């Protein structure tokens, strides 16, 4: 299909007279199977594609998407883009499209994922349902496989292609008030081990009992990798040089300073093939290995190319993946380091409370365990927390080994002192 779209792009190029342009074609072939309460509730398949065209006349632009390939339709859409561009106002921050570049072809494509069928999904789901039935429980979840091809070209000569596959599997087991979840999202099928996932699910499920009431407080917490990435991926969304320079975020004037705790290192890397590596972004700018925090010092903030040019700064890409440095402590070691605390599996519904201070709110989800004197004592209710992530890194007491958490992150478990719980879920 992508080759057919490339032919269409040739036709598009012949029929535009813009000063500059960027054209991106995208094809996504997905198979998504949702299950709930031990039955399949949705099972969906299809290929969708589109070509996004942005035309520039001077510093004015108009964008359209094209998803029908007959020539009449394409010409009508191109005329639409031109009309928009000619009648709009200028973008004084316009920069010309990217030119030809050389870059490495990272291999994010896995034939084993591409070959997965509906029947393969059903085998996985049947195994999940059988496991739940053995425990007189119900299971809900999702199995998905995606094959994605994208192709970007510009008037100034950039040509780049990304082909990748993603396999996702999640499951939540539930019986009465007990519920917990395990999920994996991988770019190589060999990183998906259903028996390991079920063993983790069952271990967590057996550790959870009726949720005992516990009041909110400041308390040490062991954040499992999913909980850690939940917080720091959210924080990364408002890491931005423009916003920082305007004084809108906590990152203002902090580059080069000990903004984080000394044990906090975070980067984006093109060197680890277990997670997604993309050579360029959606406008053809090349991604590079980027340190965001090193020994607690804020090293970089994403900086758009036009903003960088205006302010004599270097362009810095977005965090295209997130790797947080780990340590060597196990959960058992961490439980022995503090008198008492909570083990948190995952967070939910994180939102910004205050953009300037960087304060976030969210809730625990899928099982909270209370430990004391080095041992898990009971499961407790869910909590609401309000925390400032960079401030939280100053309270890191220990780091666990890194794990590949999903397609875009490698994350350790963290032991954090005085985590701020502000409310509990009670009914």
């Amino acid at each position, binding site marked *: 299909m992508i080759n057919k779209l490339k032919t269409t792009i040739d036709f598009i190029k012949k029929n535009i007279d813009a000063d500059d342009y960027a054209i991106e074609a995208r094809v996504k072939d997905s198979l998504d199977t949702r299950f709930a309460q031990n039955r399949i509730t949705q*099972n969906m398949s299809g290929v969708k594609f589109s070509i996004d065209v942005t035309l520039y006349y001077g510093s004015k632009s108009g*964008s359209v*998407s094209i998803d029908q390939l007959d020539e009449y339709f394409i010409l009508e859409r191109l005329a639409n883009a031109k009309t928009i561009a000619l009648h709009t106002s200028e973008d004084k921050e316009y920069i010309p499209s990217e030119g030809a570049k050389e870059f490495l072809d990272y291999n994010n494509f896995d034939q084993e994922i591409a070959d997965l069928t509906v029947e393969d999904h059903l085998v996985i789901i049947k195994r999940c349902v059988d496991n739940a039935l053995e425990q007189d429980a119900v299971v809900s979840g999702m199995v998905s496989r995606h094959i994605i091809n994208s192709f970007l070209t510009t008037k100034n000569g950039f040509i780049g292609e990304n082909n990748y596959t993603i396999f996702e599997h999640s499951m939540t087991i539930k019986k009465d008030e007990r519920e917990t979840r395990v999920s994996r999202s991988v770019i190589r099928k060999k990183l998906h081990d259903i028996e390991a996932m079920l063993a983790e699910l069952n271990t967590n499920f057996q550790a959870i009992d009726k949720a005992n009431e516990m009041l909110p407080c400041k308390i040490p917490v062991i954040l499992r990798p999913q909980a850690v990435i939940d917080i720091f991926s959210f924080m990364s969304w408002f890491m931005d040089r423009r916003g920082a320079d305007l004084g809108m975020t906590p990152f203002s004037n902090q580059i080069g300073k000990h903004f984080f705790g000394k044990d906090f290192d975070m980067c984006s890397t093109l060197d680890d093939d277990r997670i997604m590596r993309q050579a360029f972004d959606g406008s053809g700018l090349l991604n590079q290995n980027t340190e965001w925090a090193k020994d607690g010092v804020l090293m970089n903030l994403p900086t758009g190319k036009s903003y960088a040019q205006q302010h004599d700064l270097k362009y810095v890409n977005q965090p295209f993946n997130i790797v947080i440095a780990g340590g060597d402590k196990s959960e058992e070691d961490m439980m022995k380091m503090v008198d008492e605390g909570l083990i948190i599996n995952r967070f939910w519904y994180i939102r910004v409370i205050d953009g300037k201070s960087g304060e976030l*709110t969210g809730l625990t*989800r899928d099982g909270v365990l209370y430990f004391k004197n080095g041992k898990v004592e009971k499961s407790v209710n869910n909590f609401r927390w309000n925390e400032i992530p960079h401030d939280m890194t100053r309270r890191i007491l220990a780091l666990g080994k890194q794990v590949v958490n999903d397609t875009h992150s490698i994350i350790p478990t963290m032991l954090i002192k005085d985590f701020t719980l502000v409310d509990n879920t009670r*009914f």
Partner: protein
Amino acid sequence: MELGKIAIDYARSLGADFADIRIQRTKREFIFVRDLNVKRFNNDDSYGYGIRVFKNGAWGFAHNKIFTKDAIIDTVKSAFNIALASSEINKNFKLQLTPERGYIDTYKTPVCIDPFSVSPKEKIDMLLEINRTLLSYNDIKQARAMVISQNDHKILINSDGSHLNIDTTYVYPSYTAVAVNSEDSQSRSFNPGATAAGWEHVLDLRMLENADRVAREAIMKLNADSLPGDKRRDLVLNPDHLALTMHESVGHPTELDRVLGWEADFAGISFATPEKLKNYQYGAKIVNFTANNKLAGGMATAGYDDDGVPNQEWQIIKDGILNEYGTTRDTASFIGQTLSRGCNRATNYYDMPINRIPNLYMEPGKEECSPNDLISAVDEGVMIEGQGSFSIDQHRINFQFGGDMFWEIKNGKRTRPLKKILYRSNNPEFWNSVEAIADKRFWKSWGVNNCGKGQPGQTGRMTHGASPTLFRNIMVGGSK
């Protein structure tokens, strides 16, 4: 449409228990202006069809955008094979569809001025002028303005004999001023929500006339105090704020798919379980929530849902008691209902419909009561306008909300602006704390165009509404 008939006939010939084809074209225009620069003027157009086949208690869904007889036959075959394979897993846990008759009908959102016929220049000029007004204040460091216009044309044909031709349009403009000083940064927005209407609605909103007030309130908020510490206080919540609170704490918990646990792995489930129907005190006795997919201007108003079920009006909460859910043809039978309430909707042609919140609003108070009457009944409290931070647990019990503008109430009077205010509560505490609701003169609607749900993710549309409402004794405080 001939191709639709081919799809249904072929699905029948394969032995489908039920089948439908939804042919959908979505046109969407998005314009975004920041600091006098037109950052995005995008016109999307997606066109294709989704086919559902129901066989032996299981669904199969396949989508395509190639409109040939062979492609349609292949897509039906794919949906049928997926359903058949899925039914093996479901053999002891079958889905059931409630019955529905066939309808031949059309629906079109009343539109005076087609938003796609308005010139790009007119739209851009309006957004730029708003930018200029906001940026004319020194303390406003960033101005953002946007407008979305969308039209969806659906043809739904199913094996019940329905042939529906549905054409909906909505517009959604908004803008934000960000005020910054050396200590803090605060924003204020003009955000009227989305409305099923044409460009005439945008003109009626008097957007530019409000820009000066919005800029001044952003600066006022920047220089305001917060409240020291958490404390139980009274709240007067305006309709443009309450829309989101009711969406999260009443709308989602009463979607039957969540109640049944179908979203347990992702969006979450609901505390409002079926044994609570007709007996659970969800709110105070004066609290009545009406679902109404026939609401004029309602974002969910479309004549029929994507199950081919006609739009209806019913009560979700009646005199404070949980009365009913929003249901679909594949969920209703699980609680013994014989008909669906028509809440199955998909976003794009390639999305399978899912159980959605209907247009859902709180009825105004029956007694004569104004917002000033509510304020004068408060000794110590906060009035909140607009929307800010929002977060709720996966059972829809524990929630925390911020807002866009806050006013302190002292001894029955609105006294000074505040910032960084949050309130925290749990269902059922919150809705049972309602003491008074302003009357129908003050009722306003607020439309949602981006309700995230489903895997793969979809953005649903619905409208909420309320009159200003007084809540007693809620935990209110400032952020850190």
